[in-house]
């Protein structure tokens, strides 16, 4: 049988107490236990980036992270970027650039773009392509996604 432990996770500014099996990923816990379903599962092997979240300001793959290893870390999911009424400037830029099609990759894409802009406020096109290189979008061809990040950098 798998071991189960009690943990505290700090997510979007709130501390959540949970009983979780040690083998479970943060992605599973976010989606199934906390119903934070904005974080998506595209491949479950760390390739597509749809499950990207911010951990201490870095974009990481929640499908490759064990929930028990995330205690005492500052976790931000797509739901934590805005209350829905007023958007984060990165979210607004993705809307304004027309970058969003099916939207399934977008929570991860926006999170990764946010992490980039937090450490590099005015990235070049090459830096944006590099930073988003492991977030797969099957709809857009990336042009408008890159436009969105430029737009966010200048607003």
């Amino acid at each position, binding site marked *: 049988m798998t071991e189960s432990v009690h943990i505290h996770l700090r997510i979007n500014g709130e501390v959540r107490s949970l009983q979780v099996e040690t083998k479970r990923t943060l992605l599973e816990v976010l989606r199934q236990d906390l119903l934070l379903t904005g974080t998506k599962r595209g491949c479950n092997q760390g390739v597509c980036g749809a499950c990207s979240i911010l951990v201490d300001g870095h974009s990481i793959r929640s499908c490759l992270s064990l929930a028990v290893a995330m205690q005492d870390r500052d976790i931000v999911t797509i739901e934590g970027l805005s209350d829905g009424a007023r958007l984060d400037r990165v979210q607004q830029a993705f809307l304004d650039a027309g970058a969003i099609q*099916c*939207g399934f990759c977008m929570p991860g894409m926006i999170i990764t773009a946010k992490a980039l802009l937090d450490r590099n406020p005015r990235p070049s096109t090459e830096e944006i392509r590099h930073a988003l290189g492991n977030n797969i979008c099957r709809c857009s061809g990336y042009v408008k996604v890159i436009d969105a990040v430029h737009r966010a950098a200048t607003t």
Partner: protein
Amino acid sequence: MPRREARAKATGAAAYTDDIVLPRMLYGAVLGSDYAHARIRSYNTSAAEALPGVKVVLTGEKLDGKLHGKCIEDEPILATGKVRYIGEPVAAVAAIDYATAKRALQLIDIQYEELPAVFDAEAALASDAPPIHEERKRYGGRVPPLENPNLASYTAFKEGDAEAAWSQCDVIVEDTYETPAQQHMYLEPCSTLAAFDRAADQLTIWTSTQGVFIVQYAIAKWLGMPMSKVRVIAPYIGGAFGGKGGVTNQPIAAALAIAAGAPVKLTYSREDDMTMMKSRHPSRIYMRTGARRDGTLVAREARIYLNTGAYADEGPFVNAIAVGFSRGPYRIPNIKTEAWCVYTNHLKAGGMRGFGVPQANYASELQIEAIADKLGLDPIELRTRNALVTGDKFLGGQNVDHGTLINCLEAVRRASDWEARRARRPVQPGKRRGVGVSSAAHVSAMNGAGATIKLNEDGSLTVNTGAVDVGQGSDTVLSQLAAGVLGVSLDKIKYAAPDTDFSPYNHQTGGSRTTYTVGVAVERASEHARDQILEHASEMLECSVEELELRPGGLVGVKGTATRELPFVSIAKRALYATGGPIMGTANWVYEAERFDPKRTLTAGFAPNAVGVFLFAALIVEVEVDEATGKVAIVEAWAAHDVGRAINPGAVEGQIQGGLVQGFGLALIEELLWDDGRLVNPTMMDYKVPGAMDVPYEIHPIILEDPERTGPFGARGIGEIPLNLAAPAVCNAIEHAIGRKVTTIPATGERVLRAMI
């Protein structure tokens, strides 16, 4: 014009199927076959059934064994009697959680007797090939029965007399082309939540699909229920590209839910999705084209083999469309094309963006290039000389109403500075540069659509069509059309979510049809509502309808006056409470396909009617080839599309850029690979699709607008045609760079190096 639903998607609030949770919900999992071709000897599911938490274990033995399919009724819900590919669903479990369901799958014991398998389409047609569908000649469906147990369908078109015309040709080119099994790789794997209410005898399905009505019809048929007991709802869809057309895993989810009497969520893992769903048809095409010295195309013959895998799915349609587009967007008076859609022991193939045209157009455009090489003609000049123009007939005899390929070619020629760019030489040692061009045509339309538009009590409006936005932006575009007719802002229009209980019928999203076909229904329904609004206003303002005009913001006014006007809200209230009754605009129509003209085109086998209006596009691509590795990088691209009218230019650009990049994936990297029937790259780690580093930022969409006579505000559908352009332009650019043809895609480093040696 931002997308209507973009805010929900950007904040994570948009619920896709797997995000929905119901009380008492169970989790489904599916066991795939371990054999490419085998007879099922026995099942033992007792250990799985005994596992705590397991509620249902289903196998083909427990279902009715009936076969189903859109074109050919050849497919069971779960394998019955035989398995025909590795990964074919053979058993399904519903349990209290996903981990328990997966554990239960491991406890299912199925005994097989292995049969010889065949994986190549031409090999499968040989008389001594192992029979995959022994019952083929007894199968029902739209495609007539055939004697050969491995032939799903055959289509042939003939115009003029190609055999006799070869002697008139000064130059003849001939080659064989191969295209791969591309995977749709929508980011959201297939998912269905099925809930069965035993007391009410009602099945409700939330699913990631291109069409709620197609699923409703299929589920009712597959499970033997009346459609009135099946309700299908489309939440947000995480991409589709053809892969979520027809049925996906809905029948299995529904069968589990009915057996369990509880909701069952069946969400595929990426690996399940890649091994159990479908791909684009791999093809092998033998083609021969001849021209006169001045570049006039004279004759073409082609034989097309499509590998449809274990089940036909939409293969016979794809096969027929490939034939219809095998001439390309050109005048070639003598043509003969035959195509075979063949069963093999691979994953099934079905519709994918382009629907047979990317395969046929790849071969065709490489042949045009080869003729230009031989005659020393500029490739754009050769294409322009032979391009279909307005008034010409497409292959099959259907009219070309907007023959604008020449405009598209000219637009990309100018934008790319073609002549100067072609003349340029390598920028750095070890790299070669090349510039290539392609043309393409596609259709837009297909089948029926309805729309209603309801004037609400507060003067706002609700549009309902049943059309599913799979990400391309149709919720926004269809709302814009209604807003355009009624002169109101978009925030006054609600687009109702597709739901078979409430929406008018709509065929699925596909065939580049939603903006055009559903758009016509929305435009007409909006006009119908407008006419009712004006009738009321004329009585209220005591003037004739002709004296009235719609004013921005939902107002009706008397022409030439500033004050004599009424808001929609007053009209809505009068209609609701005083006279006339609720205002509801309705419209329905179906694209009435022309039959092929038998005096012009001889057809044989399965040849459906012409399906829509034609549109044209052209692409120029610049590539850089690494001499040491053969790896090809796309440097820049210019694409011109005549979309009739861009209702939402940003969305059109997104379709062009996204479609091209999927096509660049097909051209350079994407290919499902099998080893003895086993898919060796069924993950996103091993099957790569283009990322932001793999494609250039410099992809320039050029939108041309020759308004479609029959389209809503002049629009045509743009969803598929960009993909038809990509692979041939890339390979023509590679040829320009290295002086050799690459006739098999994807043009991987290895294939390009081989061509160079």
